[in-house]
């Protein structure tokens, strides 16, 4: 067999197919099924990663036509640099999460059958890989639907609780609303390619070659943006994210947050830069504004949460906003023909996609390990876990450092490149843009500062201090070896992506060449492989290895100097200001940590705070018990979703009047329909 990227990807699918065939045979022994199933998915994801890396490194484009599908409408697949990049993102995280799952899914053994988990997991992976490979509208939508349906069943895995069922249903509804918008968008583009008769130009190739008139191009763009935003979780279409991600098993949450949202980004980039190609500057401003709103509101909503996985889900909304900010900048620069800056912004967007997949995957895996050990998702019941789970806490800390954009980890590199893109933007001819770009930089800075506060809260409340809840904590155990390996590999990748950015940018060269026509790698590594210098080294330069080594050297020298002296360390009880009755409930909890921010930014949410003294009959000066109730709700529920849900119920009640259940009326309906058809068929 000849070793080409296409053959590697084909073998990846073959492995999954083998797994699906094996599953009924092995399913009686559930433990064996877990090991076999997730090992196969690990291998398959690894092959997908290899194919993606190779394709981007070479810059090749391979196209395959599979004669499945409808007659005259075969499936087209295309593996080019953009697909290859997203294939790498999908495959890399899936490899680590599959390894992690071998240990994590053991927690479900005995309580329920995990056969469906293994099957739908494999279908989910297949769906995501096919989405980035699809080269025509029909196959794209089939793969999209496969991905959505498989993830619906995965979210619904623990379906005995009613809120899980509701969350999954909401997810399904929003995913399909988005899919309809994408379908209409493809319809416009395909229709323009052939002139609204015949089906031949449903392929992306045909759409690429067509010149779209401005009005219809805008319609296609808006529909595609709406549809992909629904899947990516951009505000205001984000409501399914904080419902669906927490209820799914944690390895699924890691994949959904880490890579499924990126397939939506892939879709956006593909449609805007590849299929449409030429666009006015206001599209970029539009995307930038949505990105800014998502970033700021996402992190603020996350700060209000005390459920660990909901917090991480809202944080995904924030990071998708950051990616959209970079994409918006890239679009603005492209429309002004600043191809070098557009390449810089595109690198920022793609780098952040890869980074987010890595660190969000790591964070969800860590949250899963905590959930596995304590059976708690509420941070206000946790605390002091760092002593029982040293590996998990250190790896979760690496995830927190990466997502807060702190050197030397990877989150900082993509934020740094985004800031450089903002700062290098020249005075553009539109005064609105001259206002928007500095404002954008300011809001991005606000977002990253709030994200740091968010992850101090997440890590501090979960792992540090004492156990805040009422349960004893003797049965808390560390994650097992498979979970640790999955997390360690992800953490090492985070560190590697942060310390060696120039290699990744060199590798990503062909992508920006293909999409915007220019590359920055020659200048980015122009000063040496250790220095990241996007335009020139006088303009801006960052050397991650030297910063890391510098800090490490100073810390090591200080430690050695101070530890050779005398000075014992004595352990004593904590200093509680002499107050004898200190309890664990007197620590800061997740809710209290974010209280100042709730006071400052509270106008953005609908907050209901209520304090009640019990018993009500006692005098106010001598309460026996205090009851505090806080509810923070997303305003978008009340503005958008509640009215839509109410309206749809109203309409369906009206139409429901037609359904009497009496067969005579139904026969009259059929009769009238036949008369009408006979009249109009002439």
């Amino acid at each position, binding site marked *: 067999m000849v070793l080409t990227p296409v053959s590697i990807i084909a073998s990846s699918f073959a492995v999954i197919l083998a797994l699906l065939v094996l599953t009924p045979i092995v399913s009686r022994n559930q433990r064996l099924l877990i090991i076999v199933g997730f090992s196969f998915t690990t291998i398959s994801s690894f092959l997908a990663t290899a194919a993606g890396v190779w394709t981007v490194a070479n810059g090749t484009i391979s196209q395959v036509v599979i004669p499945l599908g409808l007659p005259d409408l075969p499936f087209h697949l295309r593996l080019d640099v953009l697909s290859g990049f997203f294939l790498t993102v999908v495959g890399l995280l899936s490899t680590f999460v599959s390894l992690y799952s071998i240990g994590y899914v053991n927690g479900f053994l005995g309580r329920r059958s995990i056969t469906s988990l293994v099957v739908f997991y494999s279908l989910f992976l297949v769906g995501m890989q096919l989405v980035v490979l699809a080269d025509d509208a029909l196959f794209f939508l089939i793969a999209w639907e496969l991905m959505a349906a498989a993830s619906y069943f995965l979210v619904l895995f623990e379906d005995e609780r009613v809120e899980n069922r509701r969350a999954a249903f909401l997810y399904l509804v929003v995913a399909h609303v988005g899919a309809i918008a994408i379908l209409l968008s493809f319809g416009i583009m395909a229709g323009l390619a052939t002139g609204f008769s015949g089906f031949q130009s449903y392929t992306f190739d045909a759409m690429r070659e067509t010149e779209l008139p401005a009005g219809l191009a805008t319609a296609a763009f808006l529909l595609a943006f709406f549809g992909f935003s629904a899947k990516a979780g951009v505000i205001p279409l984000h409501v399914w994210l904080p419902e669906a991600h927490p209820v799914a098993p944690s390895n699924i949450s890691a994949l959904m947050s880490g890579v499924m949202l990126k397939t939506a980004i892939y879709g956006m980039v593909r449609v805007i830069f590849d299929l449409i190609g030429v666009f006015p500057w206001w599209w970029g401003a539009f995307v930038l504004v949505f990105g800014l709103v998502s970033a700021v509101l996402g992190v603020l909503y996350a700060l209000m949460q005390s459920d660990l996985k909901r917090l991480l889900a809202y944080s995904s909304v924030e990071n998708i906003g950051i990616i959209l900010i970079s994409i918006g900048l890239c679009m603005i620069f492209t429309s002004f023909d600043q191809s070098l800056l557009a390449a810089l912004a595109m690198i920022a967007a793609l780098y952040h996609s890869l980074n987010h997949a890595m660190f969000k995957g790591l964070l969800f895996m860590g949250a899963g390990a905590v959930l596995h050990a304590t059976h708690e998702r509420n941070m206000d019941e946790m605390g*002091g876990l760092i002593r029982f789970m040293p590996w998990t806490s250190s790896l979760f800390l690496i995830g927190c450092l990466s997502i807060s954009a702190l050197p030397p980890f990877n989150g900082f590199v993509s934020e740094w490149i985004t800031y450089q893109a903002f700062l290098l933007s020249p005075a553009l001819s539109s005064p609105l843009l001259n206002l928007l770009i500095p404002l954008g930089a300011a809001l991005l800075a606000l977002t990253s500062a709030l994200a740091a506060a968010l992850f*101090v809260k997440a890590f*501090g409340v979960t792992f540090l201090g004492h156990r805040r809840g009422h349960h004893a904590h003797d049965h808390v155990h560390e994650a097992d070896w498979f979970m640790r390996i999955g997390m360690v590999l992800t953490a090492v990748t985070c560190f590697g992506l942060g310390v060696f950015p120039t290699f990744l940018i060199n590798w990503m060269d062909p992508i920006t060449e293909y999409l915007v026509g220019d590359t920055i790698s020659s200048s980015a590594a122009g000063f040496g492989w250790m220095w990241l210098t996007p335009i020139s080294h006088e303009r801006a330069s960052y050397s991650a290895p030297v*910063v890391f080594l510098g800090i490490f050297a100073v810390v090591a020298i200080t430690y050695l100097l101070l530890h050779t002296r005398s000075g014992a360390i004595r352990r004593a009880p904590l200093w509680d200001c002499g107050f004898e009755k200190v309890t664990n409930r007197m620590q800061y909890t997740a809710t209290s940590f974010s209280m100042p921010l709730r006071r400052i930014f509270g106008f953005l949410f609908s907050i209901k705070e209520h304090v009640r003294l019990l018993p009500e009959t006692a005098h106010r000066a001598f309460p026996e018990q205090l009851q505090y109730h806080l509810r923070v709700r997303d305003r978008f529920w009340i503005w958008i979703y509640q009215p839509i849900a109410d309206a749809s119920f109203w309409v369906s009640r009206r139409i429901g009047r037609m359904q009497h259940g009496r067969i005579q009326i139904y026969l009259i309906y059929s009769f009238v329909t036949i008369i009408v058809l006979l009249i109009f068929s002439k």
Partner: protein
Amino acid sequence: MKIHPFLIEVAQVALLLFLAPLFAGWVKMLKCWFQGRTSPSLLQPYRDLSKLFSKDVVLAENASWIFRFTPYLVFGVSVMAGSIIPTLSTDLPLSATADVIVLVALFAIARFFTALAGMDIGTAFGGMGSSREMTIASLAEPAMLMAVFAVSLVGKSTSLSQMTAVISQGGHAMLRPSLVFALLSFILIALAETGRVPVDNPDTHLELTMIHEAMILEYSGRHLALIEWAGMMKLYLFVVLGIASFFPWGIALNDDLLVVFTALAVLVLKLGFVGVGLVLIETGLAKMRIFRITEFLGSAFLFATLGMMSYFMLE
């Protein structure tokens, strides 16, 4: 006569380590004079630090590795930050490794770990300090980034050495509205980030009024010495950053020995003046309520964004 740039770098780090407590002593001395008292000696901070290094360390029973690691990390990060801000000369070999965004991120690392250390022991005051510190930082850090961005737009680079060189050679063209806005914003931010009145009183003994000190209530011995030293270094670094960005005349642009010595003398003079200004602000203002700080920082953020916008619109 030329000095090797590496020697300038070493001299700069040595200055950071040894001038920072002296500057803290100068600020204390001025404060006492302005309040009509006699002051402690100028060298008092050195004595405090050397005493603390010789004391034992008492750790809470549930202190984790984060608590023990934080003082070293905070110290290391401050030293790293000090090696990239041009104080004596712009010809620094480490200037290509980190620019102004990295500098802000280095302060963010120190703050992140100090906040975690505050939460580590599990006392109410530690968590309170962490919560307040991260809230103030989430408003102050964007404003600081915007202020230095405004300066970097004028200096056409985010590398600190380049910015300093361009501004000191710019002459009267440097009197721009964007720089004025950025300077105003920077002063407000420096007060917030270094924990001075009117944001946080560094001499307070009341835990409920503490922001930064609440996080370090559990530290003792050499750990406390490192953290206090890092605190003094942070004040020094902010002052030196402000000087390098807004008043860089006097910083050597080459490695000539005579020019570098003049730069040292000018630096000491500037530090003296800034000390007087800082203590005038501290003595004249009262500490604000925590929730008034948002207006304070919000106006700093507004000034900084206005500075950037005025650059984009007018230039």
